[in-house]
């Protein structure tokens, strides 16, 4: 179990076994139109060998969080507050050379669009062996052998010949495999996968997800899986964090969040997605309205303008007070625990089929 034990407002030192812990992270960009609060007070922990799924819609801050963990944000225009501790080492204040030592070595990333993430100018083999040479000091020959070995591991046919191919000579699924090979070449402890299968076809997606799962068992990496597809996290993740408007609104184990969700936004996500076994005569249950602008997020609970249950909360707290995400399993919502359970069982669950 990943320990999700800190409240949003407690930037305390990490508990014992968390391998990456993020505390009260705030990321703000200054733009011409004003300050964009892309991430606003986010905390989570992840243990070695576990998978944390982060779900949310576009603009919910899930990608920004992970770019910040890797230090890939633009330092000039970005204001970062909070703590990111990787094995107790603070990453926010780390210098660029320090981060360079970690990136590709201790932590690596798999991007969504493999065609833009890979350089068209270098061969696949060179791009895989580069981080290996940099971090281990291996010779060209050793690095090339390692690249071939990794290509074979991820299932590229004829790796000895394909290692000299350029990315455009690979199909979409093969490029994504090559990117996985590149990210795993130094046995990283943390792997961040940002929508790794969104651009792929469903049969290829299934191959890639299984491949990631099998490789995780072998390498023992922790994976942060960013996606908007609840089906993908149900398959892959141990724990789940639901994000909305730059904040975590619900977290818990995958089973807890998918089987007894507590936050109205999570209900909305579940109700919006038809399943292969749902009742086709029931209309979908969409969330009304559209995601808020992060330039000027709603006061109080950011979900209140789209929430159908604000009238159940007394004193208009939804508009005024920002709900906190409690310790461990829980949701950032003003409804009482009984209300959440009652609403879910009575009105939401029957519609999910």
């Amino acid at each position: 179990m990943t320990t999700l034990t800190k409240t949003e407002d407690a930037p305390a030192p990490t508990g014992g076994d968390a391998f990456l812990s993020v505390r009260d992270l705030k990321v703000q960009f200054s733009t011409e139109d004003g300050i964009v609060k892309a991430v606003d007070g986010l905390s989570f922990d992840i243990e070695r060998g576990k998978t944390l799924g982060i779900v949310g819609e576009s603009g919910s801050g899930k990608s920004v969080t992970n770019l910040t963990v890797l230090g890939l944000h633009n330092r000039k225009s970005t204001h970062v507050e909070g703590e990111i501790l990787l094995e107790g080492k603070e990453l926010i204040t780390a210098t660029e050379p320090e981060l360079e030592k970690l990136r590709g070595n201790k932590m690596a990333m798999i991007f969504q669009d493999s065609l833009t993430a890979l350089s068209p100018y270098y061969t696949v083999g060179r791009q895989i062996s580069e981080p290996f040479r940099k971090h281990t000091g291996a010779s060209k020959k050793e690095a090339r052998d390692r690249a071939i070995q990794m290509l074979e591991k991820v299932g590229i046919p004829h790796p000895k010949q394909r290692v000299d191919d350029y990315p455009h000579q690979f199909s979409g699924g093969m490029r994504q495999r090559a990117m996985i090979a590149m990210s795993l070449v130094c046995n990283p402890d943390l792997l961040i996968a940002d929508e790794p299968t969104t651009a792929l076809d469903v049969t290829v997606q299934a191959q890639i997800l299984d491949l990631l799962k099998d490789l995780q068992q072998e390498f023992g990496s922790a994976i942060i899986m960013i996606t908007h597809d609840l089906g993908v996290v149900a398959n892959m993740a141990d724990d789940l964090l639901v994000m909305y408007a730059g904040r975590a609104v619900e977290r818990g184990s995958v089973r807890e969040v998918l089987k007894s969700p507590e936050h109205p936004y999570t209900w909305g996500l579940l109700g919006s997605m038809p399943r292969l076994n749902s009742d086709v005569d029931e209309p979908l249950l969409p969330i009304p309205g559209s995601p808020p602008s992060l330039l000027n997020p709603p006061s109080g609970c950011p979900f209140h303008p789209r929430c159908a249950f604000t009238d159940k909360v007394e004193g208009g707290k939804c508009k005024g007070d920002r709900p906190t995400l409690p310790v461990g399993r829980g949701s950032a919502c003003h409804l009482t625990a009984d209300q959440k359970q009652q609403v879910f069982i009575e009105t939401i669950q029957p519609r999910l089929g």
Partner: protein
Amino acid sequence: MTMSENNQTTTAVAEAIPQQRDADSAPLLQVKDLKKHFPIKGGFPIRRTIGAVKAVDGVSFDVFRGEALGLVGESGCGKSTTGRLLTRLYEPTHGTITYNGQDISTANRKQLAPIRSEIQMIFQDPYASLNPRQTVGSIIAGPMEINGINPPGGREARVRELLEIVGLNPEHYNRFPHEFSGGQRQRIGVARAVALEPKLIVADEPVSALDVSIQAQVVNLLQKVQREMGIAFVFIAHDLAIVRHFSQRVAVMYLGKIVEIADRDSLYNRPRHPYTHALMSAVPNADIDAVKKERIRLEGDVPSPISPPSGCRFRTRCWKAQDKCATEEPPLVQISGSREGHLTACHFPEEPTTADRGEDIVLDPALAALEDESGANA
């Protein structure tokens, strides 16, 4: 082959939408052996055609009045090209499209004019399909203007009414597309498509560019206009769950061909084609307590449509393939054990019952190797 196919599809609809059948049993749209080959030019100094991308390569199906036919498949299977052929945005290379008894596959501009108003299209990308220099009002009134339609009360009143139908504020009549979010723009696209009260709408991935919570809004809207206005839909998408939710009949395409077409229940619960079966098993299920289905993991990607495999096109990734599959192309027919109207193009189809399925099939060599290893260690 196409004739017999046709007869069978005609009967298929009996179960799906009996009420329409009573009114008029002739299909609204008949597609026969439709092909679209895009030439590949090359050579120096004289560029000539050196090959063709066989995007759509012999597709036949019917669409009945008021029904929604889903078209699914992976990228490059030709589903979008098929959609554009139906609306004559592309010229077919071969085959016929019969709309309401009239062959429109070779009709010229003038002959097509009255039909264009009856077949409309909704595009995938709501950012690219609306003219940024026109107001919403003129975008939606455009089709009426071109077709010279003057609704009672004037075009503006009709546009406001349409805006209301699709869930937008009629006061937004004078706004420009950039003032709207993605979901709202797609609603404008829907309003434009239904402005002329068409009989058929081809929706090409209408929700795949939208966020999850907005997708459901647009799907519900499309379903509302389909039911209330009795419009037939060709619903093209790659998301199997959304297609299942929307369509009464579904066709599965692979490399320019339809490999299986059936009513929704048969296709999703008792697929006969190995590809359909693999596709279903690849969909990740958000229900973690769902009965564990067999896991089928194919090898590699879809082959190139420039030189598709001989015989059955799926044979290069199929676990049941035999010599016959390479030499003989399987016809799209109703095979024994299938329900009426359930057509499958396969020499060695899956069993009609799901009882004896359940074994995992892992064809991907990397996965198989990793899983053998971990199995041996455990």
